[in-house]
């Protein structure tokens, strides 16, 4: 099956800093999504981005499908951005998640 690798595994930032999270995948995919998991376990949709670039406020994402990677950018980070960020891809009726990036934003 498709392998998904996320980096870095952990990231600690000061409030106001910018960050880039990376997702590499091993095969061509039909779908790619970025999620933020809150402390209660709820997965919150950030982007549905099988290719191209999207922006939503302080967050943006880029997927280069031909090179099999996606990037999530967080600008001017806030303490409420803390949590685990997951990249998930699907190629054939199954969605595969990476291990996640745990982001901690300090005030």
């Amino acid at each position, binding site marked *: 099956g498709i392998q*998904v690798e996320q980096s870095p595994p952990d990231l600690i930032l000061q409030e106001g800093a910018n960050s880039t999270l990376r997702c590499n995948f091993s095969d061509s995919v039909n779908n790619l*999504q970025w999620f933020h998991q809150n402390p*209660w376990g709820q*997965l919150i949709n950030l982007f549905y981005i099988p290719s191209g670039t999207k922006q939503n406020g302080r967050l943006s994402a880029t997927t280069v499908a031909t090179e099999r990677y996606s990037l999530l950018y967080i600008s001017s980070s806030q303490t409420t951005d803390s949590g685990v960020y997951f990249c*998930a891809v699907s190629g054939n009726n199954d969605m595969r998640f990476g291990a996640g990036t745990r982001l901690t934003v300090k005030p």
Partner: protein
Amino acid sequence: DAGVTQSPTHLIKTRGQHVTLRCSPISGHKSVSWYQQVLGQGPQFIFQYYEKEERGRGNFPDRFSARQFPNYSSELNVNALLLGDSALYLCASSVSESEQYFGPGTRLTVT
């Protein structure tokens, strides 16, 4: 509009017992998928159903089964529970093979 709903929220079972978890998709969504998330890891795909038919199955033992009903709601059944089945079970719905939306999960503890 209501999002994906799951019940129960929490559940405690004993080894060897059986459990049934339930999921109601977003109105208009015909696909439901189930995932298991063990503490500290990413969710692992268990099943996908679309229009009441199984479309995908992850690497889980036959103790895990699921079904989808005519109203597109779904049940996940786990037989002969093991301690290692303790996890957060997540349900997601989508229109078809597109963006998935997740429910709040059912936290299962097996003692």
